[in-house]
């Protein structure tokens, strides 16, 4: 029980922690994260150029919104700071899929988490539903950043465990 309290305590502290961190634009790499137009994105392309021949370098980012998959772009002087989202991923065991499009997940401390909606996209939905319908033991990974949550991966932990 003390375990669970500690967890709760921490997640409260987390809620107070900042959702984004400043980081120098020059240090953000491909496959890293960045906030563009207040959306958390995964960087898929970085290029640098100069402002005028003898000016300073600037970075050109192409990012993909990690939740809705939309493409966003931004240009920042490379010595300036950018916001980097705090992206958290947590594994839960999938207990149930309800009729109204919510999932029921088992948390580490034995409680259930029932506030997460299934994705609306058909193909993603079927990937999750099919796996569950086959009676496999599924663990879903939930990605959360800047106040949003979404299932980002699932894994068959198989009969061995």
């Amino acid at each position: 029980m003390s375990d669970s309290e500690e967890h709760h305590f921490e997640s409260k502290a987390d809620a107070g922690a900042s959702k984004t961190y400043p980081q120098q634009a020059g240090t953000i790499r491909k496959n890293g994260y960045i906030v563009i137009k207040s959306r958390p994105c995964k960087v898929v392309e970085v290029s640098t150029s100069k402002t005028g021949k003898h000016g300073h370098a600037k970075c050109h980012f192409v990012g993909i919104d990690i939740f809705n998959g939309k493409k966003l772009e931004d240009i920042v002087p490379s010595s300036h700071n950018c916001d980097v989202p705090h992206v958290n991923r947590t594994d839960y065991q999938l207990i149930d899929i309800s009729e109204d499009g919510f999932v029921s997940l088992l948390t580490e401390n034995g409680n259930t988490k029932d506030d997460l909606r299934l994705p609306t996209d058909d193909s993603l939905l079927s990937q999750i539903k099919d796996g569950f319908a086959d009676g496999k033991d599924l663990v879903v990974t939930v990605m959360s950043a800047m106040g949003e949550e979404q299932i980002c991966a699932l894994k068959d932990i198989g009969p061995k465990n």
Partner: protein
Amino acid sequence: MNVPLLQPISKAIKPYEFGSRELQVNQAVLGIHGLDVQFTGVNFLESLVSEFSPSTSSAMGLPREFHEQCRRSLEIDYLKMFYCWARDAALSVTNRIVESKSEVPEVKVCNAALRLMLQILNWDFHLNNNSVKTSINVFSAGARLDIDSSKRSECTLVQPGPAWRDVLISSGHIGWLVNLYAALRQKFSREGYWLDCPIAVSARKLIVQFCSLTGTIFLSDNGQMHEHHLLQLLSGIIEWIDPPEAVAKAIGCGKSESEMLDGCRALLSIANVTTPFVFDRLLMSIRPFGTLTLLSTLMCEVVKVLMSTYPEEETWSWEARDILLDTWTALLVPLDSTGGNAMLPPEGINAAGNLFALIVESELKAASSALTDDVDGDYLQSSISAMDERLSSYALIARAAIHVAIPLLTKLFSERFARLNQGRGIIDPTETLEEVYSLLLIAGHVLADEGEGETPLVPYAIQTYFTDNMGADEHPVIVLSSSIIGFAEQSLDPKMRASVFSPRLLEAVIWFFARWSCTYLMNPEEVRETQSQDHQLQSQQLRKGLHSFFREHNQGKLVLDIIVRVSVTTLLSYPGEKDLQALTCYQLLHALVREKHICVHLVSLDSWRNLANAFANEKSLFLLDLAHQRSLAQTLVHSASGLINSEASNQYIRDLMGHMATYLRELSSKNDLKSVAQQPDIILLVSCVLERLRGVATASEPRTQKAIYELGFSVMNPILVLLEVYKHESAVVYLLLKFVVAWVNGQISYLEAHETAIVVDFCMRLLQLYSSHNIGKISVSLSSSLLSEAKTEKYKDLRALLQLLSSLCSKDMVDFSSDSIETQGTNISQVVYFGLHIVTPLISLDLLKYPKLCHDYFALLSHLLEVYPETVAQLNSEAFVHVLGTLDFGLHHQDAEIIDMCLRSLKALASYHYKETASGKTGLGLHAAGHKDSGGNLQEGILSQFLRSLLQLLLFEDYSPDLVGSAADALLPLILCEQGLYQRLGNELIERQANPTLRSRLVNALQSLISANQLSSTLDRINYQRFRKNLNNFLIEVRGFLRTM
């Protein structure tokens, strides 16, 4: 008849020989049947020649050898005859053309004849060079083999051989051609003729082509005949380009530039077949100056025109400049390493000096005027490599006139430095900055060569240059270098940095330093001594002065210190300037630590210690690009080779990296690691530390091995903890894996038995952990590009894991440790198989579509199967089936190399089984035997399956013929293992064959495949060889009809 129709006819003639039609064509070409027929005849011959030349011949479904035979016979029997016909045809109409006042129909014939002659001279003559050869080598016949004779690959030489001498040289043919064109020139103002009219163009092209004539066609009379030939041509060509000012002016007023460009091309051709001396002398007899002077003035004019036009306009002057630069390069590039041939006559040196001055002026003007245009990156990249080529040509010209060029550069530099200093804060310095930038690039090229991986020597022209009464530190090279170094030193001052040293300018400085220091900085003495024996004492001493000036006891250490401090400035004071920092890390610092004697001084410098200190402790260096940090770590570790002993080196590394290892240990033992670890700032820091560790690990040397092993050992547990925590953070996982790969790869061969056991155990835990995270995992995302990213990341991870296994494998091959690893009970083969067993389920057939992963995987697999076949037998059936499934996949791959590796694996597998069973053991045991699957169906053993699919491949599918040898090696043991199945398959094939003749052929072929050449049933070398022959014969005999029926 029109021209498009000719092509099919010449094709139709080609399969037969050209015999009986000869007479008719000859008559036609000579004009007996009138002009139109003559014109057609000449055109016909032209397309015939083009059809017979292999490079332009059309595919007729005939073998290459046939084309070769055709061209051979054409070259020996007909080519010269055709040429004479064309010449006679042209001669027959020349008078009419020259005499008539306006265009006459004969022009058409003459033009066609000139084109035919050009076509023939373009022929790739090579039979006379090796006429002894009787058989035709189909594969090499296409390639030209004149490496020794041409200095530049772009210019093709014409070498028809002595048989052509009477036609081309002795008969006054050249004189006729030159006169014809001269006559045409007179007519240009008239109706029907102009500078670019077809006949004029053809005549000029032919003249240029004649300039490239060389080889055995000339008598070996000290080049007199050749010289006379060139002079004859040049006397005609000179009219096109001399006087240069007038020519340039005329073109500026609207005259066509083609004649002038052809003149430049002719000079290039001549330069390619002569030495500078001969080249210069040619013109002396008809003009008061030499050809080099003409070349120089001509190019000066071109450069002037270039300066006065807008840079973006693609005008004739660009083309002319490039051709003339090529001419200079052809003249000046040394033929051998001594560079003896590059020396010019005095007049030529002056000409080169004038030209260089003008070139520098034009480059500076271009630099300062090109400020406003905002070119995009792609274009910039391609123009940089073009510029590099241009600058190296400039450098050749400058070195030819070294006494003018270097003082000139020094003067220009000091003017600009002064202007920058005076105008600070008052005038916009951008123009001057751009000029300095260009000057730095030019100076770098003039002073030093690019090493291309080797240590470049001081350029010959600089080595041999000296004048009387010159003190050691007055050598122009020293003066120039010192002034540039002094300028660069000012970047250490923050105020100067802010106002003058833009990132771009500093890029040029760093580039210059990197290039310059490879050649001059602390040059080791012994290289010089051997070279200077045959020169005068005075020059020798002076040269020594030049070389020793930047050596350790002189200015060398001071300069080194400046260079290091400037580099540190670029890293610390230019945040986010990745390009600049990349140059510093990869070019300059790497170059500095390459030589041990420089490292000795480096590590004693305060500035270097400051760099190491900042690297270990300062926050700002964590803001560098990750790859740069890795490279910096590598550089710092390499510099430890300059320390006094291995004790000191190891301590140096402990000091350098100790903090970071401690950080990882502390982080991994935190209670709240799980939540802290996900913070972006922590992720960044962890990534930096991992990249640095990886950089250190790649720099492993015997001397520093101990410290690096301890370093890695101390973070082994943290690595596993982090792998667990960051299992969803693919970027970090990749860095973790790459560090382990680099560390194991650098360490494994030095490790003692107990250390090996620890490392192996660690690797296995790593593999298991990685596998448990990733097996059965499906990424879910809306974005298809994110999904493909995820796949790519997985591929990169797996590739790293395979590399890890390969490094472990190498322990059995290269081992420097004192005792055998067996003492600790570690069996590398078992370990690697176990690793493979963990990794293979992650490698789906989909992932094998990544070529590099596929290659790595099969390389590892074939190595394992060849070296340790016994362990594969111990794999459980699931893993075994998976391994062999991938083998089957590889067998049908498109890449011949991968198929080859699979065949080698099969050979290893089957021969192991055969040998084992022959000696009464189980071999592959259950895997090889057939068994019943869950459905009750009989499953064949794996060897039977492979025998079947290999035969199927060999007989019915497409594959490269190179593979037959290795296929034979795999097939023989398979047949020996599965004799019964082989007989059955053979019978099946025979029964399917309805045609009785083919059937009997097949029966015989199958029989002789396993019995001819005294093939026995042992697996030794001789037997493999015999079987290769048998299989070859077998395939030749039956594959044709089996595939088509």
